[in-house]
């Protein structure tokens, strides 16, 4: 397998955290922030740099919901499935999004435009049901509004 080139940013990042105990999760956070997911090549790299077996990195990445192993779409749709949103009809909104985009949760649309994520509480329960696209929060979303909201992002293309 071809080895990924040494990524200078990753090197400096790892240097910064190297001496600190329990650094793995924080480094993974930085990697995901930068790439949108944790690429396999970087995990390999990281394993060598930190002298941690790849299996240990993999076990951590897969344990936490936050880390992704595949690249997300251009826009991340985070549908809140917290209790308040659930009670106020988040399930219906989810169905509608799935219908419109033709993907399931955790998948990316074929054109790579949207990634659909179901999350546990975005902490804006007063606005339930809530959908967050990238960093924009849409509150009190109705089923009839979903298509409109999504079309904004499609038009942008």
């Amino acid at each position, binding site marked *: 397998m071809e080895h990924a080139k040494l990524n200078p940013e990753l090197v400096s990042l790892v240097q910064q955290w190297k001496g600190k*105990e*329990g*650094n*793995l*999760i*924080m480094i*993974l*956070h930085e990697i995901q922030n930068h790439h949108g997911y944790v690429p396999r090549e970087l995990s390999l790299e990281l394993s060598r740099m930190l002298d941690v077996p790849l299996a240990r990195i993999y*076990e*951590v990445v897969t*344990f*936490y*919901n*936050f*880390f992704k192993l595949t690249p997300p779409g251009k826009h991340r749709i985070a549908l809140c*499935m*917290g*209790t*308040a949103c*659930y*009670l*106020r009809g988040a399930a219906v909104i989810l169905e509608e999004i799935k219908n419109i985009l033709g993907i399931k949760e955790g998948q990316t649309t074929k054109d790579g435009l949207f990634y659909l994520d179901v*999350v*546990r*509480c*975005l*902490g*804006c*329960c*007063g606005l*339930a049901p809530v959908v967050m696209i990238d960093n924009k929060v849409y509150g*009190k979303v109705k*089923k009839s509004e979903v298509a409109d909201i999504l079309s904004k992002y499609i038009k942008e293309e």
Partner: protein
Amino acid sequence: MYTKVILVKDTDLKREDKTREFYTRLLDYLREASLHEQIQVVRVADIGVYEQGLVVKVLPDKVTYINVQDEDVKKIVDAALSDGKIIEDLVFKPKAKQCRIVLRNCGKIDPESIEDYISSGGYLALKKVLGELGQQKLIDEIKISGIRGRGGAGYPTWMKWNFAREMNSAEKFVICNADEGDPGAYMDRSVLEGDPHSVIEGLIIAAFAIGASKGYFYIRAEYPLAVERIQKAIKQAYDYGLLGNNILGSPFNLDIDIRLGAGAFVCGEETALISSIEGKRGTPHPRPPYPSVKGLWGKPTVINNVETLANIPVIIAKGGKWFAQIGTQTSKGTKVFAVTGKVKNSGLVEIAMGATLREIVMDICGGTLSGKPIKAVQTGGPSGGVIPENLLDTPVDYENLQKLGSIMGSGGMIVMDEDDCMVDIPKFYLGFCVEESCGKCAPCRIGGFQMLGYLKKISEGRGIPEDLGQLRRIAQSMQKASLCGLGQTASNPVLSTLKYFEDEYNEHILNKRCPAGKCSSLITYSIIEDKCKRCGICFTNCPVKAISGGKEEGYSVIQDKCIKCGRCFDVCKFKAINKK
């Protein structure tokens, strides 16, 4: 120089443009009357009152007017500039008094300014602790106050601190648990974002109490603003000599760092949280040994919740006795609840312990959104239970909620009305716990999955009476045998609904009916002929052609074909679709 500030917000849904209209009207009036340099007008995103038309709040008088009309502009400006005159027929009168201790600064000070926090009395408690009190008196004061952990279990804070203090170890740690994973709760987020320094001050005091030299904030990565605010606040505290070496000139040293959570509910459990900070999978460990004996990297560690820590500076500043006056016999102080669900004014509520659930839900939050009667209130998130309407007069404290089969939890409070199904709700919570179970111990991993299977079966109309007994048996084994709090409490939603709403389970099992109309397998749709105008909109919208007929003869639902998607029910303008 402005002497008054007027905040405006249209609180009716979907009328945000009205706010702007009124805002311009008010500005125009002020300009015409040459008062625009005396009064500042601000459009705000949230004014704390909901569904009351246009709402106006005058500062610093703190007078709120509701249902304001365009012609009231002059009256409001006159009153604002007068000496304490209030327009009686517009003024908003909240029914029950809230008591703000934890949220004392939220929304009042600039969370990114340490100067603001200091000028409102911040870090005086730390000064008092380092200068006058010392470790023993500090812990005594916390003991007098009677404060218990706000994370859910309600363990007395002073005992936790005392255990860790008595440990003989060169290295000790303090951790602020800001991994607020309970869906439907956001108190901690609000405090972290709105008043970060109060939590930092609390953490420094806790560190001093046990003699720790290193502290951590464990914050959910899903709260980027909270992380940013805490980061800034920590930096400011270093700049002011409140962190680092020789804090405020004393021999006490403390460094604080941030660690991010990564979306695992179980990491709210303290031993799992410790694993996560150590950079491992967040799986819990058996207790004892408790973290105060053997915690982070095997060293004595105290873990306190955000809300607990935010209370500490006030307790020190005003004294433990003052704090102990508030609340009930066993539960002192206040509690912040995030009241959400089918409630009119959803939001954060801070009340003295001992207020009743009814006061919170009806008086402060205005009852249900739909106006329908409340069916139940759920506290404690996935670890809590459902409390039926007839028990809402119970005063809120740790013991009372536990007696009812629920828990205080971190402070989520979900209001449910008639349209919520008491089989569907535990199914939702259990689904959450099954997904979040770390899989380490069998009772939680297998028990949760099996219970979920039974609930699914019942909600799909395939339940048999014996299932209820099985559910109870599994639930009790999970309570007894699970390793950590997640598994021990995951069955609470099931047990409490079985206790108070067994009839509803039986309706599903015996009569194959869902009284709330939520469980889709048990619903049938039909067309009410009297109401049907034969517009045909249901016919065109049905995705599976399960509606037959035409404009002449009328329409009907072919039950065998119907997939119960509810689209016909949604599109019918004449309420001619019956859902049962």
